[in-house]
């Protein structure tokens, strides 16, 4: 760990002429800016300040936006066992993504990510570890793998496949996600499987799926080219910086008006408002009301895009035809069978919209505690035709603050608003997610939904809520890959209690030197109702690895192996290996392959990551990141897939990609659902087809489904959760902060970032702070006496059995307490009666406060919904010190 004291350097070595240049992309946010790694041996002379003396061909000092090297962009690594300098800076020549050679603070300092024993990265996991006599001790790979495989096979044989739980990242490179899902889903075939950000393997945006929108259809230039852009539940400046600075800022310079629907202001929101935009500061969970009120104003004025609706929205017969993809047992079908969402087309939807009292602008504004005029202004900007009769080009962007507040309801509502504004299928007129992490998931097996014990009212099963299953004591072996699990999930402290009980407090703990005794002990643990935990990660995370894991596998990561991944506009790049992984650390695909082979599974004998990629690529076919054509072209040219993608450098290739009739020209895809796109008459060549999503929507007819979004499916939870003001409760919500990525696994090891954010903090409005005697820099206790949690895995029979009030009535919800400390930051940037924290501090996890209640339609958590009380504890050291933290507002424009 880094201490919060940071001494900046006042000089930096420059790469010499002849330094090797290796292209890659950033490891962090969805945007995945292109980077160049300059590498040269420490024995070589560094470059000089004139253009003929350095690898950049630049005279120093360089111009603004130039190839400057900040000291945080330099490191020393081992390459083939020999120390080398590396300088890692954004690609200054790229025409895509991070144009102008821009970068965020996160990626800008990515050189600090590299393992270097002289920096705080020194605690990278370097060998497998096993907990023996209560202590995690280094062991060789063979011992750790043999024990894990034996115990795994025992658990599956004795307790069933669902007793083997796999909780994994969904994105940390295609080769790894493919190997992991092939292992878990195709071979073990467990329904106890999910990703880092959800308790159940379900779609993140059910409303988009029903409407026919791909999450990542738009291209970055669409976000620039919109004339009105509605941004829901995110400030892209903070969380996908370059999308904002290189695309949206340029849009605003061209007159784009941005509307933000979010309870909090930060730099990007403030800048947009300064540029003539609008900030609709809704209360958590009230987005649906405001979105539908805006839609109502639009249809009452007749501002909807009638031509678009006529051509691209399903009518009664189209809505019913084959809805649900032909069979009854599909996610689409069961959500719509009650008639709560499905409509007979635009007029039917409009009639429903106008008949809901809570969507009257004054009512919605009152509940959301906003100025009602903002609803009218937003409606005008989004849809009112201009004086010449033309319509504004409108686009809609959503992210987690929005879709993790009322997952199903909000995504249904925004889809309908988007549809009537003509968003979705034309340049600058798009709807999609902005994105969080990059897109590196390829599934090597199908989720066995019919093995999930959760049965919903009606006719189908839902993917297992793996947290609830674990809390019910059914998970006997938890295989955790690259996620903190506990702090990432709602009601974290309740989850931690159960982990503690099933692992540490189980009497069966390894106390032996003998392999067979170790295996027998862990088998006995599982058989006794306890749980065995194996954990793959790059650092030892607390508590999942440090406290609960019996076996820890050290993973190799970015820069330590060749990997493929796509970004938020479906652009696929090769992230190249440029230095040696520390110690015996191995990539996740290798770890899985070793384990799988020991468990007796076939098809895991890959020799390198390119072989994994060449197997995985088949499973991208038909998806938004279909790059099978690149593989076929590579083979035609006698190249490996990685080798071929490497040729594309930081530009990469924008998917889905097809081969033209000539069999050698790649056809990329700028945006999905592009109704203006003309595909070649001759058709795609060879094994390619023109997928429907290229020019139409992902629905049964290729047109959009306009769906209802009833408040009543969520309102009982919202009303129950709503802070009791007399008791001093406030809404507690959370999200990312610009300087930190995910759990801060790298940021905690960057002295400068630790200096900026040594601990979690809580933004509180000055009025709320004054009532509690809290000042910026005070330590506060943020706590709740009512964190609701789903108790047991259950079957729904009646239609409303899973509705929150019904679950409560029937005793399926338990209330627990939670408490975390934080440093107060008093600022009007946060809405009154709301507090905001960093979502994933390992020591002070904000998710502990959020209700562990899945959205009863989709199965996702509504992570952004919780309540808390705040009590002042006393001053923190940061209140009066000058080196650490800053309490200046973050929304200065």
């Amino acid at each position, binding site marked *: 760990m880094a201490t919060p004291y940071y001494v900046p350097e006042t000089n930096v070595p420059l790469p010499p002429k002849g330094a090797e240049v290796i292209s890659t992309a950033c490891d962090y946010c969805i945007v995945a800016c292109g980077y160049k790694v300059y590498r040269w041996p420490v024995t070589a002379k560094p470059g000089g*300040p004139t253009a003929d003396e350095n690898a950049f061909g630049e005279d*120093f*000092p*360089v111009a603004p936006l130039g190839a400057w090297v900040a000291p945080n962009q330099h490191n020393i690594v081992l390459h083939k066992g020999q120390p080398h300098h590396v300088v890692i800076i954004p690609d200054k020549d790229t025409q895509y993504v991070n144009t102008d050679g821009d970068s965020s603070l996160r990626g800008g300092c990515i050189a600090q990510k590299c393992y270097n024993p002289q920096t705080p990265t020194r605690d990278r996991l370097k060998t497998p570890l096993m907990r023996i006599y209560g202590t995690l001790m280094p062991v060789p790979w063979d011992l750790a793998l043999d024990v894990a495989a034996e115990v795994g096979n025992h658990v599956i044989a004795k307790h069933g496949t669902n007793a083997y739980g796999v909780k994994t990242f969904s994105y940390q490179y295609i080769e790894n996600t493919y190997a992991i899902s092939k292992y878990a889903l195709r071979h073990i075939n467990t329904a106890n499987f999910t990703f880092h950000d959800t308790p159940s393997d379900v779609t993140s945006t059910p409303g988009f799926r029903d409407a026919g929108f791909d999450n990542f259809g738009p291209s970055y230039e669409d976000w620039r080219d919109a004339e009105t852009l509605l941004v829901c539940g995110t400030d892209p400046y903070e969380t996908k910086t370059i999308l904002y600075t290189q695309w949206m800022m340029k849009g605003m310079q061209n007159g784009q008006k941005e509307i933000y629907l979010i309870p909090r202001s930060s730099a990007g929101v403030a*800048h947009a408002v300064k540029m003539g935009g609008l900030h609709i500061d809704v209360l958590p969970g009230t987005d649906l009301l405001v979105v539908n009120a805006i839609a109502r104003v639009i249809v009452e004025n007749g501002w909807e895009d009638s031509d678009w609706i006529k051509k691209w929205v399903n009518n009664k017969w189209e809505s019913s035809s084959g809805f649900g993809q032909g069979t009854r047992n599909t996610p689409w079908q069961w959500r719509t069978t009650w008639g709560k969402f499905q409509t007979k087309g635009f007029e039917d939807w409009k009639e429903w919209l106008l008949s809901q009292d809570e969507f009257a602008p004054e009512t919605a504004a009152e509940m959301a505690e906003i100025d009602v005029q903002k609803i009218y202004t937003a409606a005008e900007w989004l849809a009112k035709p201009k004086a010449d009769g033309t319509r504004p080009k409108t686009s809609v962007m959503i992210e987690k603050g929005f879709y993790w507040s009322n997952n199903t309801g909000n995504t249904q509502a925004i889809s309908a608003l988007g549809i009537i504004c003509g968003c979705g299928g034309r340049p600058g007129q798009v709807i999609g997610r902005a994105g969080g992490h990059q897109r590196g998931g390829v599934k090597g097996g199908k989720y066995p939904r019919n093995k999930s014990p959760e049965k919903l009212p009606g006719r189908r099963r839902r993917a297992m809520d793996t947290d609830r299953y674990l809390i019910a004591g059914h998970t006997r072996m938890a295989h955790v890959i690259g996620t903190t699990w506990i702090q990432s999930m709602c009601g974290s402290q309740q989850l931690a209690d159960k982990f503690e009980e099933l692992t540490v407090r189980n009497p069966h703990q390894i106390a032996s030197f003998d392999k067979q005794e170790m295996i027998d002990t862990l088998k006995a643990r599982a058989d006794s109702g306890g749980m065995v935990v194996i954990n793959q990660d790059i650092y030892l995370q607390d508590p999942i690895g440090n406290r609960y894991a019996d076996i820890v596998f050290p993973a190799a990561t970015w820069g330590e192996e060749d990997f493929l991944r796509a970004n938020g506009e479906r652009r696929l790049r090769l992230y190249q290996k440029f230095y040696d992984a520390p110690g015996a650390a191995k990539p996740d695909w290798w770890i899985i392959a070793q384990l799988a082979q020991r468990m007796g599974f076939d098809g895991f004998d890959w020799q390198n990551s390119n072989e994994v990629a060449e197997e995985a690529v088949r499973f991208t076919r038909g998806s938004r990141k279909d790059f099978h054509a690149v593989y076929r072209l590579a083979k035609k040219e006698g190249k490996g897939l990685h080798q071929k993608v490497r040729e594309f450098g930081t530009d990469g290739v924008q998917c889905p990609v097809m081969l033209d009739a000539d069999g050698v020209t790649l056809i990329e895809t700028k945006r999905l659902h592009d109704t203006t796109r003309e595909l070649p008459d001759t058709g795609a060549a060879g094994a390619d087809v023109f997928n429907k999503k290229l020019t139409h929507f992902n629905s049964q007819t290729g047109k959009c489904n306009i769906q209802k979004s009833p408040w009543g499916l969520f309102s009982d939870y919202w009303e129950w959760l709503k802070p009791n003001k007399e008791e001093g409760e406030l809404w507690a919500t959370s999200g990312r902060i610009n300087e930190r990525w995910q759990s801060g696994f790298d940021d905690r090891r960057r002295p400068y970032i630790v200096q900026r954010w040594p601990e979690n903090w809580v933004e509180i409005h000055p009025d709320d702070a004054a009532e509690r005697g809290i000042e910026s820099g005070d330590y506060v206790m943020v706590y709740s006496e009512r964190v609701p949690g789903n108790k047991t895995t259950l079957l729904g029979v009646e239609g409303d059995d899973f509705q929150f009030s019904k679950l409560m009535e029937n005793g399926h919800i338990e209330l627990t307490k939670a408490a975390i400390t934080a440093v107060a930051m008093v600022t009007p940037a946060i809405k009154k009666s709301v507090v905001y924290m960093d979502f994933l501090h390992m020591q002070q996890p904000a998710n502990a406060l959020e209700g562990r209640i899945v959205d009863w339609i989709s199965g996702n958590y509504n992570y952004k919904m919780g309540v808390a009380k705040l009590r002042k504890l006393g001053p923190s050291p940061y209140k009066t010190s000058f*080196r650490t933290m800053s309490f200046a*507002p973050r929304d200065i424009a």
Partner: protein
Amino acid sequence: MKDHNATGCSCSGEAKKACTVNRRQFLFASGATTFAVMVAMPTRHGQAEQVPALVSTYPRKLIGKLSELEQDVPVEFYYPDEGDYSDSILVKTGVESGGGIGPQKDVVAFNLTCTHQGGSMYDSYKPEHKVLGPCPLHLSTYDVTRHGILVSGQAYQSLPQVLLELDGDDIYAVGMFGLIYGRYDNLIA
């Protein structure tokens, strides 16, 4: 040492020299024990030898007079030379600030070039927040009361702080803390 630091001393001769060293040491460390942690030097004696060496090559340049500074009205100057990106400001913030000099320890100076991509922070001081920025290029802001730490934005490090000394009423720039944008070494323009 304590008195010299607190008041901006009026020592002269050898006493002045000793005082200056201490001032530099103080500016770098803002707390001697933490500095020992930072560079892993075991003894206080060790620091006193090391620290001045870091700044010994910077010029000592007269940049203003304490009595002429008005609160929240920045004064521009060039440092450590007059080459590219040497534009800097001296400002009396009115609140105690990290590395501040003068009776209120509220006089600080910073380089004016954003350490993200080299935007000029000229004329961006926000007296109500004691912040420089937002940078016109990509909106970074810096807290001048806290050694130029990034408040919000994309910079790779704090804004370089110009280290100051007070000699009577004269304010001298004597060193830099942090690499200036565009340069690979602060002293080579």
